[in-house]
Each structure stands twice: as structure tokens, then as C-alpha cells.
């Protein structure tokens, strides 16, 4: 990392990091979680319909 990074580049680099962090934390991770959990639910539902039948005793 060059120590001669200009102030403006430093400023915009900092801004980019914040943008990246907030994007990941507030958009990507929530959407991904919903997709993963929803997908899990969907797969279990399909298993219940075609393979396992309705949920039984236990759990």
C-alpha cells in the first residue's frame, strides 16, 4: 500500500468500505438468509408431499 495515497482516494476508499459493509450486512446477508431458510422450508415441504408424508411424532 503506497503511503502516498491522496486524501481524496483515502476518503473514497473509506466510503467504499462502509458501503461494502452496509451492503453485505443489511442487504446480502438478510436476503441470503431468507433464501436459504425459505429454500430449506421448500425442500422439506416437497419431501413431505412426495417422500415422507406429513410430519410425524417426535421433535
Amino acid at each position: 500500500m503506497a503511503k502516498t495515497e491522496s486524501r481524496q482516494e483515502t476518503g473514497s476508499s473509506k466510503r467504499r468500505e462502509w458501503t461494502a459493509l452496509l451492503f453485505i450486512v443489511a442487504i446480502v446477508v438478510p436476503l441470503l438468509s431468507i433464501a436459504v431458510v425459505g429454500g430449506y422450508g421448500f425442500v422439506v415441504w416437497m419431501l413431505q408431499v412426495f417422500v415422507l408424508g406429513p410430519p410425524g411424532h417426535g421433535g
Partner: protein
Amino acid sequence: MKLLATLWNTLKRPPVHLSLGVVVIVSFIAGVIFWGGFNTAMEVTNTEKFCVSCHEMEDNVYQELQETVHWSNRTGVRAICSDCHVPHEWTAKIARKMQASKEVWGTIFGTIDTPEKFEEKRLELAQHEWSRFQANGSKECRSCHDYDSMDWELMSDEARRFMKPAAERDQSCVDCHKGIAHHLPEDMNKGGNPMLAKLVNNAVAVNAGSEAYYSAESVDLYRDAERTELAGHLTIASEVTVQETQGDSVKLAIPGWRKEKGFGRVLYEGFGQNITNAVLEKDVSQDEALVATGEQKVDDLTGLPWAQVTVELWAKKGAYVDERDALWDTASEIYHDGCSVCHGEPDPEHFDANTWPAMFSGMVGFTNMDAPTQSLVLKYLQKHSSDYVDAENTTGVEDAPEQ
């Protein structure tokens, strides 16, 4: 695209300006907010207000709930939709939430958006829930109702008589308590078993000739094609062939055996078998123009002479199917559901065809089967009794072996 490239460049390197503490704390707070939001979404979609926001629910099952003990009772403890209908266990709950996409579809495309459409689907929808409760032993009921906490002394004698054995068997509540929160499918226990109504809905168009058909319900028999002179009736699941059709009537040829004693009014399915297929009026059973007699045989067990007969009479159209499998499947399901509540149901082949009528009438009072249902189930049992079961396999065969 450029934006993504920039983003990726930033993400793949360690941060230059943001401290570890800032990243961790921001992430943690965001995680908490997300977790709270996710759970809030789960809770909100479980509220009564949410469920009832679809008019299909508000106008139908929500109104029916308000007539029941789960809405209003002495102690004021009540259940909302999700208490019973949404599994509490996490995986099953998530699966059910995804399954709700089906309900979203229904709302958008109006699958049950009129009272008529709803009533048509009521049995199917009810059966979804009944099989769910059957599979998990009425787990959702047990969130509030616990057999171990029931005070037998506080129950009426009649209630205790049923509940105590149920507790000992850890029985699934909904086996007996169907209709506890919403109306039963129309005509259930009142005007007719909807499962039998479904059988008639699958009736096929009939062709005159030698092809065998089976009655999907009990039909009246007539001397004339206009169906004004009543001649008797055909029971459910009886074999016939069709001689001709005229308007909305068909002329049936009903094969059977009868006892050559008295007026010979009852037609049975096989020689020596008390499986009733048709009952004729006196004048019809004695009318040689309508009843053709064939082989004659004496039943050694009783000394009674039997005769093979074929009767030709008119009946309404639209009540016949070309094989009995669907009839037997329905009967088998009803038999299992009705006769395994208190004890394991006997195998149909445990008795022979002529033993079943007495066994059946001795026990049927403990069930809620109406007369047409009883007729179908009894015939199912008789046709799958030891007389009809091959020694090597256990599937019922259509013709009884020689007695």
C-alpha cells in the same frame, strides 16, 4: 457492473479504515435486527388478524369457529388459527410457511373465493388437516390439552368412558374429535357420507354389451324405461351389464344367485354367499319375463336349493363404474378409520363372507357409519373375506372358489 467490480475489490481486501471493532459491532447489531425481523414475520403471519385477512377464511371457517368451544367457553381460554394449523416445531413450521405459497396462489386465482367453491373443496381441505393430525398424533392439540393433566373425577361419566381409554392409548385427538372447530363437510353424519358421493362423481359412460359395470351407489330398479313402475333396488358395488340405453335410463342385466324359497326376492352375489346385490318386489321376482333362471344347485350346508338368475330392469344413468377398486379403496379407508379407534381392526379375511354380516352389525353401532356407508363397507368385507382370498396371496379375487 462497474459497481460490482468496485464492491468486490473492496470486499476481497482487509479494511484499511474501518476498525475490527466497528465491523463486528455493526454486524452484530444488524444480525440482531434481522433475527428480530425474521421472527416478527413468523409471528405476524401466525396472528388471527393475518389469517382472517383473506375473505375466504373470514367468511367461512372463522364464522364457524365462533360457534365452538375453542372460541368461547367457561374459562375463556381460546385457540387462534395458528395454535392448531401451524406446526410449532421449527422445521415443520418453516415447511408450512413455504406451503402457504399455495394459499397465496389460491387468493390470487380465486380457488375458493365463493361459498360454493369453498364447500366443494371443504372435504379435501379437511382431509389435509386430518391426515396431518393423524400423522403427528394431534400434536398441536397437545400444546394445551395434556392427557396426564386430565382430572378424571371432574368429567362426566360418559366423557370419562371414552377419554380414559384414549389416554391409555395416547390416542390422536382428531380421530374422534373431527368437527371440533369448524363445520364437518356437508352431509357428514347427516345426509350422506361425502366420500361415497365422490365415488358417484367418478361414474363412467356405459356401453351396451357384455362389459361388466358396478353400481357406485344404491339405485332403484324399474320395469319401464320411463322409471315409473318401481321394481326393486340394486345395492352398491353390484355387478351388472347394460342391455340398452333410452333417454336418461339404462336397461341393466343383473346376474346373481337366489334361494329358491318363498318369493325369491333377494339376489346374492354368489352361490351360497349372503352378499346382497339386489332386492326385488314380489311380483317382479315371480315374473318369468323379467327373471331368467339358469343353473340350479343345492347348498349342502343348509339343504337350500339355489338358482342362478339374471334379472333385466331399468335404472337411472350415471351411477356406474367399470371397476370396483375405487369402491373398495374408499370402503377400506372407512373400515380402518371407523373400526380401529378402540381396537385393531380384524383382517377382512379373518372371517368368511357369511360370518361378516353378524360381526359387522354387532359392532357397527360403535361407529358413525350411515346406512349407505354400512352397505358398502359390509360388501367390501365380504368380498375380501376368507371365501375370496387365495391361499397364496392376500388380494381379494372377484370370483369365489367353488364351495
